[in-house]
């Protein structure tokens, strides 16, 4: 009946959904290459790579990345350890305590990050005071507090990942090792840990990502060690530049790259497994023909396309020079501004004439109101003549470099700051 209608509406829905999900990221990435001083897509000015250069010279960003890496590492170690211990405990805890215990260790996921940050800060501040340590002690150090605060809830994520695999573990393996004379520590290290390795790896990646992008908790605990996310938030709140888009582009590209790589690897393992299953005996004996890396592996093909595109972009960036285009745009803007000034002047002139005529009609009791301004500057120096730049302010003509040759005699009208539109 209306099956095809349903099908079409599903596809339309999927298209809209993914547009909402991915569209903002694509647009943000594109703005990193526009020379406009405010991150936007239109009007498109010039293709430029200057924002990447600016990004890599920003000391605060670089320092933030360093702090984020240190904190991320600490969080990974602490939360994977606590998550593993928590998961082991969950599998063997006294049944009557199990529900309570589970609620306690799952709660940090649901507690707002702001609350976790505050409670960490307040609690360790109190411990610090009880021990009689000063304000610069280890316990009030930003890195320590951030690692502790983040691990509180990241350990819960790790626990969930680890417990899923732990449930498939056969305890008889450990018992066998113990019977054969291994110590508990040996059995743990040689039997359980290798079994858990894939889950530990994914828990570690998850923990690092969660730590790297955390804002709500960190914003209360970072002290003197702002992470990348904190620095970004401060930049975004107090004026945004395309340099942030450039950073976002790098992160998006890395994410896509790793996601595709992971997918291609999984797909290949799958294909190899299928090939092994279908292989005949003599094929298995030696000349098994494994499928090539790209056959039937869409992710791998995409990965290569993506890598080639990245190399092309980097190659272009090394040789491309948008100077001419930027100069053209600047000239164009200058012309536009000049035109606007001219129009403004004309309007002013007309208004003045009108007023003079009115005054003349009124009987001309007053003397001539103003000496007519015959100098080439018109009324530009009149204090109100710059009002025009206000109406234009939203347009945001913000030029990073100052206008070069300013011989038009309009004074500071072309000073970039006078027209700077701030969102």
């Amino acid at each position, binding site marked *: 009946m209306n099956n095809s209608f349903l099908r079409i509406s599903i596809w339309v829905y999927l298209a809209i959904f993914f547009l909402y999900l991915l569209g903002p990221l694509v647009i943000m990435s594109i703005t990193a290459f526009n020379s406009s001083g405010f991150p936007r897509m239109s009007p498109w000015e010039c293709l430029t790579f200057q924002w990447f250069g600016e990004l890599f010279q920003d000391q605060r960003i670089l320092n933030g990345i360093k702090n984020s890496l240190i904190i991320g590492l600490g969080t990974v170690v602490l939360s994977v350890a606590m998550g593993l211990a*928590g998961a082991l405990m969950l599998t*063997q805890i006294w049944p009557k305590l199990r529900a309570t215990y589970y609620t306690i260790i799952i709660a940090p996921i649901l507690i707002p990050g702001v*609350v976790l940050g505050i409670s*960490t800060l*307040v609690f360790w501040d109190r411990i610090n005071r009880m021990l009689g340590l000063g304000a610069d002690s280890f316990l009030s150090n930003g890195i320590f507090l951030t690692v502790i605060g983040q691990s509180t809830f990241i350990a819960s994520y790790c626990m969930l990942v680890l417990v899923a695999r732990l449930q498939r573990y056969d305890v008889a393996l450990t018992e066998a090792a113990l019977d054969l004379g291994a110590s508990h520590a040996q059995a743990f290290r040689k039997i359980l840990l290798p079994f858990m390795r894939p889950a530990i790896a994914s828990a570690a990646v998850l923990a690092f990502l969660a730590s790297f992008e955390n804002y709500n908790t960190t914003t209360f605990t970072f002290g003197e060690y702002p992470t990348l996310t904190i620095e970004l938030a401060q930049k975004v709140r107090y004026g*945004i530049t395309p340099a942030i888009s450039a950073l976002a582009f790098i992160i998006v590209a890395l994410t896509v790259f790793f996601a595709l790589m992971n997918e291609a690897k999984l797909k290949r393992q799958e294909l190899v497994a299928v090939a092994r299953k279908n292989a005949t005996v003599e094929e298995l004996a030696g000349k098994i023909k494994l499928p090539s890396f790209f056959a039937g592996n869409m992710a791998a093909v995409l990965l290569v396309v993506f890598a080639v595109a990245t190399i092309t972009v980097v190659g272009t960036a090394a040789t491309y020079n948008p100077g001419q285009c930027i100069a053209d745009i600047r000239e164009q803007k200058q012309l536009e501004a000049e035109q606007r000034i001219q129009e403004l002047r004309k309007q002013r002139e007309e208004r003045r004439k009108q007023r003079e005529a009115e005054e003349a009609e009124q009987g001309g009791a007053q003397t001539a109101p103003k000496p007519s301004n015959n100098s080439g500057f018109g009324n530009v120096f009149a204090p109100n003549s710059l009002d025009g730049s206000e109406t234009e302010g939203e347009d945001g003509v913000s030029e990073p470099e100052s206008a070069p040759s300013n011989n038009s005699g309009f004074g500071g009208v072309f000073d970039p700051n006078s027209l700077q539109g701030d969102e």
Partner: protein
Amino acid sequence: MPQFLKEFFNRNGTGMGLAILGLVLFWTIGLIILPQLSMLDFSFRPNLPPPEIGGPKDVYTLENYKYLIYGPEGGSQDYNTVDLRVFFRTLVAAVCVTIFNLIICYPIAYYLGQSEGSHIRIFAIMLIIPYWINEILRAFALRIIFGETGVLNTLFLGLGVWDTPFDFIRNDIALYAGLGYAYILLMIFPMYNVIESLDKNQIEAARDLGAPWWRIHWRVVIPYAKPGISSGCTMVFMLSAGALAAPQILGGPSSLWFTQLIYQQFNDNNDWPQGAAYAIVLLVTCILFVLAVMRLFKVNMGDIGK
């Protein structure tokens, strides 16, 4: 030593047992329980300069909670209308964001859970990628789109839909879109996990018996997916009520989120006890609200997080 502890050490050995027990105790008591209790205690104390803490003035008081309801003492108004309005607005907006997310995510979770093919994996990657991008950058991306000279305004001005730029930010549209955007994945995955395990034969049977598609969803899929739906809704509600980055970046200049008030108490006013009290109010209200809604829809606590 109680029996269960003895068993525990027999099973894990003394060294390993101590390590596991130590880490678990540090996490549950040192990181989860004590800090929350400490914050609770702190919220009942007056804001004192460090030397006076523990002194005679350091007594329990309800002052910080009274402030939220009645405002500063001797203030012009009977109630602290500004803060209370922000508080209720935050809760209502968080509920709206949750419902919005539920509506847009249910179809996709159903689609992903019930169809087969290699394109599903590509869809899953496309879903996860935005989640790996920094929360701040995601809000920043939406700000580029919703800004006064942003993509949407340029598009609609160009098409002639409206003639002056529409201020998405001041009207909070950007904020709601940003909050919805931030937590889509947390809504989809719990629902997807449950719907994936639904036996297709049940849907077939309902269809064979003549049920129209909406009734199949209403009577078969949704009751089955209830635990997933409630987990997703709980997470999205708690996280959007506690969001800080999106309101700071996408919120209009005149509209505040409750977490921003907490942030101001801590960073601008330097009034930690007051901030802690506000945080407690937020936490307790959110938990009570979630529990009430769960009772209303007859969902068990144990189903959450499965």
